């Protein structure tokens, strides 16, 4: 570790013209360059070990400002490349000793990257979230009106017993209605997903977002990514718009185009030439 620097890898592209990157800045504002090997182009930049070495990374990943800056820089580089050539992003904070090591990895993993790139070539990721507006999520819940007490509740026989029974019934009824409303919303979310999925070549569910992070009112029903053929993108978007229009009480939010972060499925290096799992 004489020079105390290392190489940060953003992603791997095929057929990328390096000039397409322009002057995009990488993490820590470093200039981005390309390493070519094995018929692939790796997007990299130099980083300092005191910021991106293992120990430093552990601390920095817990620092929101640092995490955000790194995530945005990573995304800016990958996004720029993905606009002009098929690009497979790699997981954030993947760091190598030097360019030669990156070239080695490209050669060693060329088949794996090739599969990933084949899958996303000519396709784009779109994000779709569906929110139930507050009044929709509460639908069925008693809102203080007398109707919340089921008609079946018998009139109070004695003051003490009657009040207790009525209270329990009311609680049970509330819970039942809430569960029913939840089920109804889940069904609607499933229907929305099915319709969008019909326009896509693949879909992936992201975990629900903490409302504190999304800063969004309403209940998140759906947090999906769809991989869509570029030729079908217009139709996909118009279907999303149409769903939004005809489902009052549910807001549909589309984000994109994204680099295909959510559709890099090759979890393991290809072990055998028999490609039976696809």
């Amino acid at each position: 570790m004489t020079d105390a620097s290392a190489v940060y890898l953003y992603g791997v592209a095929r057929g990328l013209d390096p000039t397409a990157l322009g002057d995009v800045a990488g993490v820590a504002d470093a200039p981005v360059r390309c390493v070519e090997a094995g018929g692939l182009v790796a997007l990299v930049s130099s980083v300092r070990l005191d910021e991106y070495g293992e120990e430093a990374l552990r601390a920095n990943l817990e620092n929101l400002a640092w995490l955000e800056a790194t995530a945005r820089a990573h995304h800016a580089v990958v996004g720029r490349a993905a606009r002009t050539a098929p690009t497979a992003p790699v997981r954030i904070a993947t760091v190598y000793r030097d360019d030669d090591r990156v070239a080695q990895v490209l050669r060693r993993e060329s088949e794996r990257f090739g599969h990933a790139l084949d899958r996303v070539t000519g396709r784009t990721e779109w994000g779709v979230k569906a929110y139930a507006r507050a009044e929709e999520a509460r639908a069925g819940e008693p809102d203080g009106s007398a109707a919340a007490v089921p008609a079946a509740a018998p009139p109070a026989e004695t003051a003490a017993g009657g009040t207790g029974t009525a209270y329990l019934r009311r609680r049970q009824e509330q819970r039942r209605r809430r569960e029913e409303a939840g089920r109804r919303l889940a069904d609607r979310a499933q229907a929305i997903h099915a319709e969008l999925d019909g326009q896509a070549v693949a879909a992936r569910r992201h975990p629900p977002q903490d409302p504190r992070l999304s800063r969004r009112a309403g209940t998140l029903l759906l947090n999906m990514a769809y991989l869509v053929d570029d030729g079908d993108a217009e139709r996909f978007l118009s279907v999303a718009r149409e769903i939004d229009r005809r489902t009052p009480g549910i807001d549909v939010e589309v984000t994109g185009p994204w680099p295909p972060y959510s559709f890099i499925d090759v979890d393991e290096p290809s072990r055998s030439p028999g490609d039976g799992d696809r």
Partner: protein
Amino acid sequence: MTVALDTGPAAHPMERVALVDLLDRLLSGGVVISGDLVISIADVDLVHISLRALIMGIRDELLGEDGV
């Protein structure tokens, strides 16, 4: 429908992208490949520690707002 489309100038791809949407993708997506230096931070760790950072960041922010 809200659409956060990438219509900005080429120099600023998806500048307005929400951090939470970006982290959905960056922390659980992309090619997972062993680096030379950070081999012991597993995927799960990465997601976990980063989410903790997020929650703590938000809390700090809220506390800061309350303090004003």
